[in-house]
């Protein structure tokens, strides 16, 4: 039994933070909640970790109800909030000891679970948590969330503000934890991390847009996307947006992702149009959709 969420809604005064959210996370699954700031990710985490009560709906964590069995849930879940929430004035080791003691265990008892993460910060074990770099803070927070050997791990935007090297290491760690029979629910605003999850839910404005494997979400994207580039990016974007047959125009790094409203779209026509707009070095090539394309199409 992993996580079961059915018809959860939550409002703050007139603001609807979550609207009728339902999904299921299977045991040992790495499930991603992908959406921007304000989508409702943190509200959902707080409900599932029993820190907040939903207005409507039901949720269970490893079979325990978030309302009736909140004490059981707290024993069996690890939670890493988005904001660094360890004690800045305690050292690395003191923080870890503190959390172990709170949960009635010791560092030694569950050391095996955190070992390959903790060894990376052990050289700094006498340093105060407040003085650690972003990447190290994140590793310590993960150790503290794991020290009582939880069955389910909740990670709220663990990689926000962390550099690419630390992000990569962090995702590698999550994959290893999954092998140790831990169910993981992780949220991120970064679409490129979606591909690293088993399944994902795309969420925006308190509503789930789609739930599936990253591969299937991309597969279900129905339009043909073209990578368009030219000598001047700004003029290219403006020209494409002004084109009468455009369905979507989104800058994507050195290219613009373009989709057309017509099913019999001929790239040559578009090229002629762009040349008339005084653009040069025009290239139009078919490309694959990404999770970001899918998200934008659904959020449109």
């Amino acid at each position, binding site marked *: 039994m992993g996580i079961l969420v059915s018809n959860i809604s939550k409002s703050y005064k007139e603001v609807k933070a979550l609207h009728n959210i339902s999904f299921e996370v299977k045991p040992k699954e790495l499930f991603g909640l992908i959406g921007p700031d304000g989508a409702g990710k943190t509200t959902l985490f707080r409900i599932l970790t029993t820190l907040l009560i939903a207005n409507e709906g039901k949720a269970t964590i490893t079979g325990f109800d978030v309302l009736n069995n909140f004490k059981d849930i707290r024993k069996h879940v690890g939670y890493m909030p988005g904001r660094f929430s360890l004690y800045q004035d305690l050292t690395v080791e003191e923080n870890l000891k503190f959390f172990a003691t709170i949960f009635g265990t010791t560092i030694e008892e569950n050391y095996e679970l955190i070992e390959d993460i903790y060894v990376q910060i052990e050289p700094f074990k006498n340093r105060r948590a407040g003085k650690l770099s972003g990447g190290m803070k994140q590793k310590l927070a993960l150790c503290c969330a794991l020290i009582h050997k939880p069955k389910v791990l909740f990670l709220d935007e663990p990689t926000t503000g962390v550099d690419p090297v630390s992000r990569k290491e962090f995702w590698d760690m999550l994959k290893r934890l999954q092998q140790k029979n831990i169910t993981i629910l992780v949220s991120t605003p970064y679409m490129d991390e979606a591909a690293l999850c088993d399944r994902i839910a795309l969420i925006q404005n308190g509503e789930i847009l789609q739930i599936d494997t990253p591969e299937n979400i991309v597969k279900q994207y129905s339009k043909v996307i073209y990578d368009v580039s030219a000598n001047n990016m700004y003029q290219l974007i403006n020209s494409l947006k002004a084109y009468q047959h455009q369905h979507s125009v989104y*800058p994507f790094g050195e290219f613009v992702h373009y989709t057309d409203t017509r099913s019999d779209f001929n790239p040559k026509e578009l090229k002629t149009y762009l040349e008339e707009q005084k653009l040069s070095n025009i290239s139009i090539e078919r490309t694959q959709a990404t999770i970001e394309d899918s998200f934008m199409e659904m959020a449109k």
Partner: protein
Amino acid sequence: MNSNNVIQAEGLTKIFGDFTAVNAITFEVKKGEIFGFLGANGAGKTTAMKMLIGISLPTSGAAQVAGFDVFTKAEDIKKNIGYMSQKFALYDDLTVKENITFFGGIYGLSKVKIKIKTKELIDDLGLDEVANQLVGSLPLGWKQKISFSVALLHEPKIVFLDEPTGGVDPITRRQFWEMIYRAAHEGTTIFVTTHYMDEAEYCDRVSIMVNGKIEALDTPKKLKEQFQVDNMNDVFLKLARG
């Protein structure tokens, strides 16, 4: 200095005690260029940027920003650059209009000019309905667009964007980049730091700092070719992991 360069740095160095945070970096940024300044946490990016915006005196080397020397004309640099960061941008408990007036005043714009600029900015971003609302009540994406526009109020030659777009949805993020393209197209130089390598792909050229040094500097396309990978994230990982 080549008059087409808005930043020119040569051997720029900053040493704290026995730690060399920035180790003799040399690079230039051209007028109207979108320049990405990348590096891992602790690589020296922030220290380098502080020297370039005139709030930290270099230990050695030379640099000119917007035509002014970082050693002797730091105050002129501050007047001639724009700055925006995700961490601090606007005052949440002032309205949109008040923020514009405040920052216009800080940069020494006349009352008439502030009035014109306020109207321009509000029309441009379609903010009519929220112009008198507190900035704190607006969605993050709007705040980012407003703070970018505010950073451009005094028509600086160059704008420094310090991790500007974290957390917003992909559509809003692209609208923000379209604003950046427009500013660059109109001749403003853009200097941007980011942790997100997909954003690095939007830049004309990027530099990557590792342990205080610039280890790579080129267009994203050429860097990808050089490292034989298909995205900037892999370029970064190859460089930063050594």
